């Protein structure tokens, strides 16, 4: 292929369209955090299937988690939330009662009883996704399974989807400059396979299937947990709220969403767009009309 042909292909390729596939049963993830053990098998499976580069592993200093956060190279991330009281030295305890003796069999800095919360985080594949609406190139599409997919050969790395996502999921890769995130294993689904992370999950914390079945299953699970005394168990993103659409990847949480680093009340930025345009146009028109009247009145 000559340089000119290559250039023409580069120029025209993004404008070629293929016929739209037929709609299939909407699918999604239900992540039950109550059974997640933090093994990170989902992270490994995701990286292996999607051939994502390895992370620079390091201890963050915030928890034992060493893979940090969701990124263009990590489409699954297991959060470790450590809910422990800060350890208090027995010597410090003793300081309250001056001269109190500290027994030698007491471990210094022994932690108070607490708990670990684990959560395998991923793109929420919002039913009405701000990233999908923000994309100026049409690289972000809703697939026939109603999942949100970024076409890597179309994205030009404008990063507007990064700013639009209220969950901080989408990021731009430093390797190729394009935005990447979970595809919900679109390629595997097309061939009737379960996404890699759900396949690898040893505890069924990540469940994949038709979204209506998953929602029903999730409600039953919450009811069962409530019967067992886990009253804090609740679903996040299973239904539409005042400010945001339902999520195709939704969660069962055991604490407030903020504890898991999720927004308590996510807001779809596009619900305010019309008003913002109106104010902006009004600002421009008022300035122009006032300016026009002034120039007209002062013209020689």
């Amino acid at each position: 292929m000559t340089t000119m042909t290559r250039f023409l292909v580069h120029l025209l390729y993004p404008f070629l369209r293929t016929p739209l596939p037929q709609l299939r049963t909407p699918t999604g993830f239900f992540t039950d955090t109550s059974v997640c053990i933090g093994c990170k098998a989902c992270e490994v499976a995701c990286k292996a299937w999607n051939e994502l580069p390895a992370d620079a592993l390091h201890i963050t200093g915030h928890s034992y988690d060493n893979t940090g956060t969701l990124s263009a190279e990590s489409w699954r991330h297991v959060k470790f939330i450590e809910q422990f009281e800060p350890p208090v030295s027995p010597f410090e305890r003793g300081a309250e009662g001056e001269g109190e003796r500290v027994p030698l069999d007491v471990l210094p800095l022994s932690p108070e009883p607490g708990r670990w919360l684990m959560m395998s985080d991923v793109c929420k594949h919002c039913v009405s996704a701000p990233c999908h609406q923000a994309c100026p190139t049409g690289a972000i599409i809703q697939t026939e399974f109603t999942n949100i997919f970024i076409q890597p050969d179309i994205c030009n790395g404008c990063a507007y989807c990064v700013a639009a996502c209220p969950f901080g999921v989408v990021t731009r890769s430093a390797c190729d400059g394009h935005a990447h995130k979970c595809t919900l294993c679109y390629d595997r689904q097309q061939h009737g396979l379960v996404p890699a992370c759900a396949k690898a999950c040893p505890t069924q914390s990540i469940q994949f299937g038709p979204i209506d079945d998953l929602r029903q299953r999730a409600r039953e699970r919450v009811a069962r947990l409530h019967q067992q005394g886990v009253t804090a168990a609740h679903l996040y993103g299973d239904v539409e709220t005042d400010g945001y659409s339902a999520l195709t990847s939704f969660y069962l949480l055991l604490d407030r969403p903020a504890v898991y680093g999720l927004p308590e009340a996510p807001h779809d930025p596009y619900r305010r767009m019309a008003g913002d345009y109106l104010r902006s146009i009004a600002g421009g028109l008022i300035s122009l009309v006032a300016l026009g009247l002034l120039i007209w009145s002062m013209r020689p």
Partner: protein
Amino acid sequence: VTWDILCNNLSAGLFLVGGLAELLAPTVFAPLAKALYPTALIFLLIDLALLTIDLGDPWRFHHMLRQLNLRSPMSVGVWSLTAFSLSATLAAVLSVFTGDDTTMQTLRQVVVGVGLVPGLASLVYKGVLFSTTAQPIWKEARWLGAFLTASAMGLGCWALLLIAMFMQQPDALPILRRALILLTALSLVAFGLVALNVRHEIQRLRGRRRLIRFAVGDAAVSMVVPLMCLLIPGDGFLLLGMAPALLGNVTLRSLIVEAPRLAGEIE
């Protein structure tokens, strides 16, 4: 991004203010056309270059033209800038080559008149581009679009004033002085409305005092000081007001761009 906003605002602001002035008072402003439209075009070209460089993959810039997505302010902006660039280029070419030919001057005025619409659109989308995101501070700034639009016209007016001074067109100066007073006052009102929008968000910030200090300082330098200079008669004060206006507008835009990063330090 700061320089991109500045060049966008200067280009479209100059085109709008200069174009409107030429259409309504041609005897005063038509002689400035030879410098006005090419200057607007140069700023537009710099803006387009900066927008392209800012992409993760600049060689795919043309992918922006695959579709017009009205729900994406960036898509609206791209198409507005494309339409505006046609008008700005045509107006610049006609202004350089028309000379005293009245037919060509009329043609240029038609091009400018038509170009006012995409010119305004390429200003209007910019603030909405920021406010229609999930980023802290930006997402609450409902009047940001109105502020940037009014402020851009103010910037354009300052640029036109400078051109009028260079091209020794004294008749334009009193009109532009009043126009600047009007546009600066409007910008100040819109800035106040933005401040009201984001006040709760700012109160949550650890570094809120520093942020408020910057915002008040920038507003004073970019709007209040120039406004005072404009109210004092004499061309010397006009020039005196220009420097803080330009400097303050750069730092104010930088503050807007940096706001979510600063808000990262939320308590």
